């Protein structure tokens, strides 16, 4: 028989923290697209589930600047939000590759990030914009770079009772960004995904941010690649160097989906494709 004795639906964060404090071992659940699966597989057991779906404080979107996305924002809502599309188009682009309509209708941005899978589709686009996350508990609030939020496969810095409150993007820039994901079929976990952001003056790259998913233990920035791009003229030579840096900078594993070799190769291929797309006005 199931070991979950309660399903709770608080209306405010304070209620949620109170419930978490009074029920040791309770898990927060948002869209449930990941947690429901893992509970069914027996990988997660929780005496109580605390649903975050009805907490208004978590679903707010404020274009700012800074852009503030409540962690509870539904992915389909995010996909349809014109303000966010104007300010952070690459994030909206990434939502299109996340699962299916059914998954997006249930999933939340926060869930995608808190799951902390190395394959999280929404992470690379946020990383190239140097997003920050706001974590909050009954004890208080803290902010840190999204990059530091992930510590390992399915591991984040979230403490028990702590909730991812919002994602902040300080200065949605005039730089352009693109997101590429390669799966085996359309609805798939990424074999590799790459987000590239470039700010250029003429043909010279003045700022580059590159982030990947499924190519290391967490979604991560590729700083070596960024170094080869920044300050350089974006010609074939630079792109070749950046590609090489990408292949070396990633830390992929071989698993049932793909070999590490192929993933390395893919990192380079997607990086090149992303850079050239941005040079072509964002068309991949």
């Amino acid at each position, binding site marked *: 028989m199931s070991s979950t004795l309660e399903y709770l639906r608080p209306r405010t964060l304070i209620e949620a923290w109170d419930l978490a404090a009074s029920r040791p071992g309770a898990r927060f659940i948002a869209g449930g697209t990941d947690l429901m699966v893992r509970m069914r597989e027996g990988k997660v057991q929780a005496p109580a589930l605390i649903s975050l779906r009805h907490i208004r404080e978590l679903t707010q979107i404020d274009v700012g600047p800074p852009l503030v996305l409540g962690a509870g924002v539904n992915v389909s809502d995010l996909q349809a939000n014109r303000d966010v599309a104007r300010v952070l188009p690459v994030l909206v682009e990434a939502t299109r590759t996340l699962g299916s309509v059914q998954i997006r209708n249930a999933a939340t941005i926060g869930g995608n990030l808190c799951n902390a899978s190395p394959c999280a589709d929404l992470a690379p686009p946020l990383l190239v914009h140097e997003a920050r996350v706001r974590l909050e508990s009954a004890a208080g609030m803290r902010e840190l770079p999204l990059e530091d939020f992930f510590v390992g496969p399915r591991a984040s810095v979230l403490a028990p009772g702590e909730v991812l409150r919002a994602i902040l993007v300080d200065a949605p820039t005039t730089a352009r960004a693109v997101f590429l994901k390669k799966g085996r*079929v359309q609805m798939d976990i990424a074999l590799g995904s790459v987000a590239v952001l470039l700010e250029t003056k003429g043909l010279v790259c003045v700022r580059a941010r590159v982030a990947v998913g499924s190519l290391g233990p967490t979604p991560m920035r590729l700083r070596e690649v960024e170094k080869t791009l920044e300050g350089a003229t974006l010609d074939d030579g630079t792109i070749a160097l950046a590609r090489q840096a990408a292949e070396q900078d990633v830390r992929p594993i071989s698993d049932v989906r793909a070999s590490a070799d*192929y993933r390395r*190769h893919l990192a380079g291929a997607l990086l090149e494709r992303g850079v050239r797309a941005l040079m072509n006005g964002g068309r991949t």
Partner: protein
Amino acid sequence: MADLRYVGKDLPRPDAADKVAGRAYYIHDLVRPGMLWGKIKFSEHASARIAHVDTSRAARLPGVRAVITGYDTPEVRIGFLRDNFALKRDRVRQFRDEVAAVAATHPDIAAEAIDLIRVEYEPLPGVFTPEDALAAGAPLVHERDADGRPVTTNLLPVTVKHRSGDLAAGERASKYIVEGEFSTPLIQQACMGTAGCIAEMDTRGNLTMWAKTQIPFLAQRDFIRALEAMGLPGRNARVIVPTLGGAFGTGLDTHAYEYIAILLAHRTGRPVKILYDREEEFANLSPRQSARTRIVQGCDADGHITFRRIEVVQDNGAYTSWGATYPTVMLIPATSLYKVQNVEFEAKIVYTNNTYAQAMRGYGNPEVTWPIECTLDQLAEEAGIDPLELRVRNKNEPGETTPMGLQVTTCGLGECLELAKKKLDWESKRGKQRHLRRGVGVASLVHVGGSGRIYRSDGGGIILKLDDFGNVNVSYGGVEMGQGLHAALTASVAEALGVRPEKVAINPTDTATCPWDVGTHASRGAFIACNAAIRASAKARKKIFALAAEVFADEVKKNLQALIKKSPSYAPPAYDVAAACRADGFELASGVLSLEGAPDEPWLKLDLGRVLRAIHFRGVAGQMVIEEAFYEPPSELPDWSKGVGNMSASYAYGVQAFEVEVDEDTGDVRILHAVSAHDVGRVLNPQALRGQVQGGLAQGVGYTLYEEVKTKDGRVLNPSFTDYKIPTVHEMAFPVDVCFVETNDPAGPFGAKGVGEPGLVPTAPAIASAIWDAVGVRIHDLPITPEKIVRALKEKKAKE
């Protein structure tokens, strides 16, 4: 042939409305009074001794009504080599071996009970490739056969061999020879509706099984034998087939889970349902066999095939099911795909501790068409002949007899090749788009079109029962699994009998009420059922006409009297009804009986129901119209040791051609256009036939580009849709030209051939041929993943 009313028309399937309304009930939906839920404990090792099984904690769990193991149940042997068991004792030989089972009042309780069963194993070395299994000193998967005789090898005592012509002469006559090794992986049928059954015993030990099966009658035989092994001789087994959520070959054998359900039903005295969840379906239901093939093929300077030598080694897995008989079907492309006189074929089947494999659509044909067509593509390249032209030069023709002894009555291969060429715009594309990394490729297929005789009877029967209202209830012992059998059968009965399709209903498949049928495989459903229906309909018409001769005149007289009463001025035409009422003077069309050549007056026509009532209620002379026919196709059971015999009544040829674009950087293959042209004999229902071909093509695309059951030391690594990828709607977003060539085969019902399987037979080599045209690499091991293409391109570049 006279104009047909219903056959060849786009009539909606009779079962479609219920399905789309959510009113079709699959095994998942069925419940029996007092039913318990069964669940199975599977082995945690690929090869081990079972040291101890402790079921005590499970048995004490509230809600558990029975816990069984191989130690407390009679031994029930399964499979045509009887090397499998319902529950395993002493040894496990694969990860999915069934070690224990429970029946409980709720599925959650059953699942919890399974976790409470403790099994201690002593791991043993296992073998996981045929090569390892055949190496000297390899551990034996089975030490004794079903009769207790010692076994000394992992090689199965099942041989299929063929040799015809003069291989040496063929080699000498070759200007070009290509040799290669090819492989196909384990592929899962991946039906959307998972496997399951309900077993129920009555108070006398007779069994009723609701089974997700394609072989209700062979299953009945198997279950009767199981009842005998359980100490219940002389009992009957009734197999009822509910609406099937797909099958694709999964239902061609009986499964351990079915026998376990029977044992649990017997133990508890209650109906027991076992249903596989998706993970169990992927990990514990038999996929199609993997095969490794070595082939040598040659041609002369003009591209005529001179000889073909094929050696296949198959991984049987730990037990034997129909996968071991794939070579019987592999012989078909080996000997009869294109004209070839000198052929040698041999297949070896080897036990390993991998998951045992069984049937899937195509049944060995795709596995061998793959190396044949790939090497033919290479021969074309070497000979400097366009690959499609090479196929045309070697095409099979009507009237030929192939080295296997297949008598090709009708053959539309030539027309199919022409259609592929035209629809794909072949001539302007092949060899001309490399700069775009685009290419076109082609491959052909031959498969049985008039069933495939692999058992002493390849027949099937039909019962037509007409009632007082002109309704026709049809009983057929094969199954509708989504392929459109019921649509074809409805149209055939309506056509052959002369009634409207709305008046025809197909009864559920039930061994208690339907005539025997060997099973729905080999694309035989419509071929057999409709042929039997035509014969039964002829009998029914004969009876109706003979009896109508006795009642028709009286009935129309009543009509005339009523008419004159209403319209006294009506003057009937001069016509001697009584004289015309002879058994050979009637016509029955759209459910209306009339006299041939009679004036076209409504009072001279009778609704069939009225005639049947008149026949029924004639006091002591009353009769029913219930007719049956058993159809046995004109084919032979081959001599498998020689690989010779005309195993089908007709042969279905076809061609697939693809245009692809290859992304050299990521290795992605994007399909731009496909043509699937088939010699179908006759189209019974255009919509259903298109659906079969498009569905087959999608499965073909899947196994060509990404489908593979991955295992490591016998464990399935990807038991879910997360990592066993089948095409989504996006992967099929390219235009598909489905073309039918009607060759009107004399053996077929209205000239039709079976086309259930051909859709996936030539897909892989056709796509591979297009990839070669696009970027100049050939992959021999399916699936052709992006990774393999990238690696091949790197190797190619390194050589240049």
